[in-house]
């Protein structure tokens, strides 16, 4: 179980994942050797699942980002599995979440422009299986995206 020192380290790490370990140790108030040991343990036990690079899709020419929300026809017991397997085949899908609520599933989809979006929507999204209803939220701007926890 992560203790309070681990929580403090994680809080500083999540607030500034770019910071070198020496800086992180200083901010969290632990010796560098102890920080290294604790980070190793947090990774081994899966508390830190991954440290990934973010990709700025706009810089790669993907100007359009859409949040698609689906309600599935749950009369088929394999509806979720088959929908998700089909969604994984669409390269422009960057996130898949499942929910308890009025929405069953959500996809984040990126496209180069509106014409490209229209093509993905017609050819790849409308053909996904077991959909009973869907709606789209088009991203205007991201105001906050921190991944931080109120530790």
């Amino acid at each position, binding site marked *: 179980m992560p203790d309070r020192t681990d929580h403090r380290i994680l809080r500083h790490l999540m607030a500034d994942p770019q910071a070198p370990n020496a800086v992180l140790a200083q901010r969290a108030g632990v010796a560098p050797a102890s920080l290294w040991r604790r980070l190793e343990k947090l990774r081994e036990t899966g508390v830190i699942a991954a*440290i990934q*690079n*973010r990709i700025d899709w706009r810089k790669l020419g993907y100007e359009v980002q859409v949040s698609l929300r689906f309600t599935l026809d749950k009369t088929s017991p394999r509806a979720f599995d088959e929908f998700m397997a089909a969604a994984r085949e669409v390269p422009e899908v*960057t996130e898949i979440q499942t929910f308890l609520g009025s929405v069953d599933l959500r996809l984040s989809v*990126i496209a180069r422009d509106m014409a490209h979006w229209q093509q993905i929507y017609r050819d790849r999204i409308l053909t996904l299986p077991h959909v009973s209803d869907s709606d789209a939220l088009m991203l205007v701007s991201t*105001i906050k995206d*921190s991944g931080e926890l109120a530790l």
Partner: protein
Amino acid sequence: MSGLDATDLAILRILSDDATRSAAEIGRAVGLGQPAAWRRIKRLTDSGILAGRRVIVDNAALGFGVTVFLGIRLAAKGRTSLEDFERAVTAIPEVQTVQHVLGQFDYRLRITARDISDFERILRRRIMTLPGVGQVEANVMLSEERRPGPLGAS
């Protein structure tokens, strides 16, 4: 695609999965020497395509068992109301993501809470009291999967 070749895309694919890989390891994976891999990574970083790091933690292991996605519709719209709402909502520590969207809602939020009653407290005391907030829809997340995106065949 901004002058990127298949090797650049392969590097992006590796780093978007694990940012802690060294230039030497990445070089070996894509068939380049360490210096050549390092130069490409530097170019991808300088151009802003590699846009910083993200730490993915096991929220449940840290006592945050509940993630909720909220759709929020503002009751009144106008530039001032958007700014007031955005300033107030970004200050809530449990709110991880705030996106301004077009569609059935005006904003989508991602919230992490310790449990359902903690979420209820955040919803009542912090979200419902936001300036201009109208209709709110909540969906509790059950699972999440991040995909590599269009970076070529994996």
